[in-house]
């Protein structure tokens, strides 16, 4: 009994102080950390690849008019998986090391928008031949929660398909 208690005491004393001073001193994540997914709006071509793979389904694509596509990201739901960054053909998304992302100013802080100018085909006035994978992800059932019901969770109007 005593021997056991002694062993335990030694085990506890040996490491000394291990508690970090965080948050009073910064503690940067190591390695290829997956933090806040930052979107470089200059690079984005609006292909919708990120929206198609995002497991949290938080990236919404809205075609405002023939030439403007809006990407809305409801980042409060982001699980920091980094799939969007993986598939982006233009490397427009980077997984940064930022992880201190709490906010006290409501959800607006968590919503990021970008508008992309889309060059269209002069003949068919679309960017790609329909049905594109993007058309498919807009079908009810897949993105149903936001798109079909106008998104009870979403501050945005539903996408109207023509």
């Amino acid at each position: 009994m005593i021997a056991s208690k002694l062993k335990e005491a030694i085990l506890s004393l040996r490491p000394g102080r291990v508690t970090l001073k965080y948050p009073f001193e910064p503690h940067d994540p190591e390695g290829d950390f997956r933090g806040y997914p930052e979107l470089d709006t200059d690079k984005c071509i609006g292909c919708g690849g990120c929206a198609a793979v995002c497991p949290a389904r938080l990236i919404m694509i809205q075609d405002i008019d023939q030439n403007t596509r809006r990407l809305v990201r409801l980042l409060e739901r982001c699980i920091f998986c980094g799939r969007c960054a993986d598939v982006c053909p233009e490397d427009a998304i980077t997984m940064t090391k930022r992880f201190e992302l709490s906010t006290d100013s409501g959800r607006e802080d968590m919503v990021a928008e970008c508008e992309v100018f889309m060059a269209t085909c002069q003949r068919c006035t679309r960017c790609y031949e329909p049905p594109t994978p993007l058309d498919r992800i807009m079908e009810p059932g897949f993105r149903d929660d936001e798109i079909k019901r106008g998104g009870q969770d979403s501050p945005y109007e539903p996408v109207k398909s023509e």
Partner: protein
Amino acid sequence: MNAQQLGENVKQKFGAKVIDFETLGSDQLYVTISPDSLVEVAEYLYRNEGCRYVINGGTDRRQQRDAFLITHFFAQDEEKIYVAIHTEVEPDNPQVDSITPVVPAANWSERETYDMIGVVPVGHPDPRRLVLADDWPEDLFPLRYDVEHGVKPPPVEGLAPERLEPPEGASVVPIGPYFPVLEEPAYFRVFVEGETVVGADYRGFYCGICGYVHSCSYCQAVERAAGIEVPERAEYIRTIMLELERLESHMLWLGIAGHIIGFDTVLMQTWRMREPLMWLCERISGNRKTYGMNLVGGVRRDIKPEMYDDVRNVIDKIGEEWAELAGAIPGDTTLITRLQGTGILTTETARELGAAGPTARGSGLAIDVRVDHPYAAYDRLEVTKCVHDSCDNLARVLVRIEETLDSIKIIHQALDEMPDGPIMAEIDEELPAGRQAMSAVEAPRGEVFHWVLTGTENRPERWRVRAPTYANLQNVPPMLEGNALADVPISIGSYDPCFSCTERMEVVDVNSGQVRVYTEEEFRAEYDQPRDE
């Protein structure tokens, strides 16, 4: 025996009642039987073929087959076979015989199947609602395809869950939903006579923290169904990550167990030892807990050769300190008195109720998916089944302590033998629809089981998951019986439960002895909290 032979056995025994059977490889058997023979076939598999019960699931196949598909899953661990028994039920008369009377472990999942798909398990001994909220409409079954996705029925007030009544003369001690030693909400109604527990009722379940095991199991099921060949290196990486997760989880668990019995030295030390492991996982995967590394076809991140030393250093350090800590435990009479002979789960009950993982192995059941149904790279590695047969809390502690040391060995061996090569399979085409596969992974808490039926456009048509806590929680009431009340928390803690939060508040008035259940609204009103819409 392989799956084909087992299928032939069943066919021979039940003749025309077996409509059809097919196999996937030599280790997966899918039998379709007529509904009237379900109980017989289940009993035959369970009693005569030595199968262990896994779970039950229901699928709405009215569009394809004009039927509800009810499926019971079994595992034959000695012969390394998983068995699915499919029965098609007519939609006009959604009823099927309950197998719980002959296979007690089916109890919860049959209730859940009724909740979700609305096929009545006829003859079920305890057909109370299991997973849906109490105010969910009686006739709305969420897994039916005609139920609109995202439907939110209006809340109804004043409903309470049906509860088991305590035996004559016993009083009720509610534990939970917020109980200081169980960090997650869970709710037990423990029936006591004096200090001795005579029974218990439980509601609410699910396990979620061990994330890697589920993504791994799901990906494996889809790969199997679609016939995708995963590169060998990816299999080794999966194995290493699974073992790192087991290390992390067992260390966390031992800390909690120490904390529950009032021995916080163990908590502080195991969690201190565990932290470098969390950072290691962060360096490898990009996050300390949600590794996010699995995709259908392989893994997203490689463990580069220059990281091997890093991994070895971290786990060796843990191994050293862990052995020291483990060496101190058997001599510590305080610990031993709390653990030895408490929370007895007999081998018999553990088998009847389908216990999994360390809970089963602490009760002398030598089952471990890594050995019985090898996946990833486990067939090439040396895995020891850590079994103890004293059936008490101490057994479950020892199983986990030994497994931790074994995991370290497995990781070393995997690093030594890991071949070079790609980590993702090339998948150019859409995955075929209408194929099914089962897959299981030995999570830190026990067997995680996934069944996938593939659909069109790379989406699953049906996906059934069983987490180990689902099986293990059903073992709690018998485990608690006969214990002193003070041993209840550690007994509950001893199988590393992981809870969802679906419970209510029960208040026992000590003067009148009256029990009343608060609904969510009443509870909020009492504490003046607005309901967030």
